[in-house]
């Protein structure tokens, strides 16, 4: 009997150990996968794979960075002079145009003469820039110069102010507007939700009567379980028009609207977790404070809050986590414009919203796809920083007190 019991205990012990180990490893693998996929971006060429840019070899411009390329193709830069070249108008040549100039016969069987003909066009036009598939590229032809293809740089990614992942020939992965959008929306949300949430938590745990608490606590917990699409819908139908009216804006889908909806969504979590933490303060501790002649308020802010600091910081982290990671609701009410935010009352776009909106259409393994993974990594790092900070602060609070 005893032996069977011991074997059983051993088995349970090893099952627990194994499942713990498996979970940790799985989480680690997910993180590694995320970073591996994401960091691949910096090995991708800045123009689409298999394509290159070609110019006339008399052109004095020897390389272009991604922003320049985009400006050329957006017709924002129209003269080589602006890029350090000769005073010549830039002529954009698209691959398809070759079929208007030459007939299929002239291009030869299986387009074998295509590179040669492309070369001719480039030689004839000293001001040309051509974006061509390398397969048909006029390589080794005198008078044609390929612009060196560069990898996407870390600077372009983190310092770039434009997010246009589907632009051709060279997509722009400037992540700054997305990071800023995420930070602004989340920070404002937390600034709204934290004081409110802690206030309600303190009210519920310290001041409210038994009846009120018994009624409010489950209701609030219920709110935490509502799917975010529902909140998003509420935001779209109710908050967006209100924000638009109150602030007299042309559109109500703004960063501020996103913050509002996030604050509303984070509140139930913050309230329930913080309230639990506050109520976990031992009765002894409160009584000791009151027995020394402290008032109820002094007891709350000098003893109860420091004592529950770690629980409260958990509430903060969960709240911020929800705010940072929230996708649908924010996607629905912020207007989704991936531009540098200049004010709270302009449309913005957050990192999670970007991932959700774009992952479906980004070809797997491509630069766009990788960039979305990298966004995931950034989000991961931000959340980690937040929770570490909260941890440190709560430790300090507990040791030193206020």
């Amino acid at each position, binding site marked *: 009997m005893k032996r069977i019991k011991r074997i059983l205990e051993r088995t349970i012990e090893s099952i627990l150990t194994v499942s713990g180990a498996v979970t940790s490893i799985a989480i680690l693998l997910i993180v590694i996968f995320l970073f591996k996929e994401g960091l691949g971006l910096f090995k991708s060429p800045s123009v689409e794979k298999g394509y290159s840019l070609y110019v006339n070899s008399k052109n004095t411009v020897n390389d272009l960075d991604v922003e320049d390329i985009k400006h050329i193709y957006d017709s924002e830069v129209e003269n080589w002079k602006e890029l350090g070249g000769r005073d010549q108008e830039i002529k954009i040549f698209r691959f398809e145009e070759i079929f208007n100039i030459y007939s299929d016969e002239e291009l030869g069987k299986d387009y074998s003469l295509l590179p040669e003909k492309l070369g001719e066009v480039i030689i004839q036009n000293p001001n040309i820039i051509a974006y061509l598939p390398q397969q048909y590229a006029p390589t080794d032809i005198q008078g044609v110069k390929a612009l060196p293809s560069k990898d996407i740089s870390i600077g372009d990614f983190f310092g770039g102010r434009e997010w246009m992942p589907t632009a051709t020939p060279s997509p722009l992965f400037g992540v700054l507007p997305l990071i800023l959008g995420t930070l602004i929306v989340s920070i404002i949300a937390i600034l709204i939700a934290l004081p409110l949430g802690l206030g309600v938590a303190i009210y519920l745990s310290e001041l409210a009567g038994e009846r009120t608490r018994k009624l409010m606590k489950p209701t609030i917990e219920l709110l935490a379980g509502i799917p975010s699409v529902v909140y998003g819908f509420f935001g779209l139908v109710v908050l967006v028009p209100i924000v638009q009216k109150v602030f007299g804006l042309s559109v109500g889908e703004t960063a501020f609207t996103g913050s509002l909806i996030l604050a509303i969504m984070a509140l139930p979590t913050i309230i329930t977790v913080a309230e639990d933490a506050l109520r976990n303060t031992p009765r002894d501790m409160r009584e000791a404070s009151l027995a*020394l002649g402290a008032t109820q308020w002094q007891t709350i802010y*000098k003893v109860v809050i420091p004592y529950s600091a770690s629980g409260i910081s958990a509430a903060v982290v969960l709240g911020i986590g929800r705010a940072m990671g929230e996708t649908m609701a924010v996607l629905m009410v912020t207007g989704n414009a991936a531009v540098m935010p200049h004010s709270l009352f302009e449309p913005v776009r957050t990192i999670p919203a970007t991932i959700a909106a774009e992952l479906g259409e980004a070809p797997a393994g491509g630069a766009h796809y990788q960039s979305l993974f990298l966004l995931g990594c950034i989000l991961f790092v931000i959340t980690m920083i937040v929770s570490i900070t909260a941890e440190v602060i709560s430790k300090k609070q507990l040791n030193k007190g206020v």
Partner: protein
Amino acid sequence: MIEAKDINFYYGDFHALKDINIKMDINTVTAFIGPSGCGKSTFLRLFNRMNDLIDKTRITGECIVQGENIYDKSIQVDQLRKKVGMVFQKPNPFPKSIFENVAYGLRVNDMGDKKIIAERVEESLIAAALWDEVKDKLKKSAFELSGGQQQRLCIARALAVSPSILLMDEPASSLDPISTSKIEELIHNLKKDYTIVIVTHNMQQAARISDMTGFFMMGELVEFSETKKMFLNPEKKETQNYITGRFG
């Protein structure tokens, strides 16, 4: 002097204290003994109105501390609690440094500036026989102390606001014998400055430290007399049974 007159106390419908009458002199140690659940803690907690914190409680009768009925409407409870300090059964230091624990009562009551507080903290720690053990780590968290040290810290904390009465609810019950004897010695020394009321389950302890002893049973004060008399020659049969271990 502390006096209870015709005290009846109720937790909701439960009649926890029945017609209690008692007088305790200043600068004495009074011990309350009795079986678990007989109402010792309830009675002790009447004197700093700690029972006010519990919902649905009711009291009749008078509790007189320094000539005033402390259940009178004109009494300010926080002022009363400054006068009547309390030490709890389990050490319950605040999540603060050792220094801040002792300074707490001074701070919440606005008793003096930085210098005065520092002096008072030192005096209290000395009075609680803890100073030598903690003087080099006043900034450390109180949780880093041993259980016995924590309890003496709680005593220092109570002494800091200069109460005249000290209520102690089984202050040594969670401590080892050495810590216990330190606390007992401390109580003995504090007697000259404070009026001490202590609840204990340890009969020898009551015999060692107290001048007067009260025996509670089922919410009634069965017997109250000089400690020596109580333990050598009790008047009531119940007391005799309890003390000799035939009950409880």
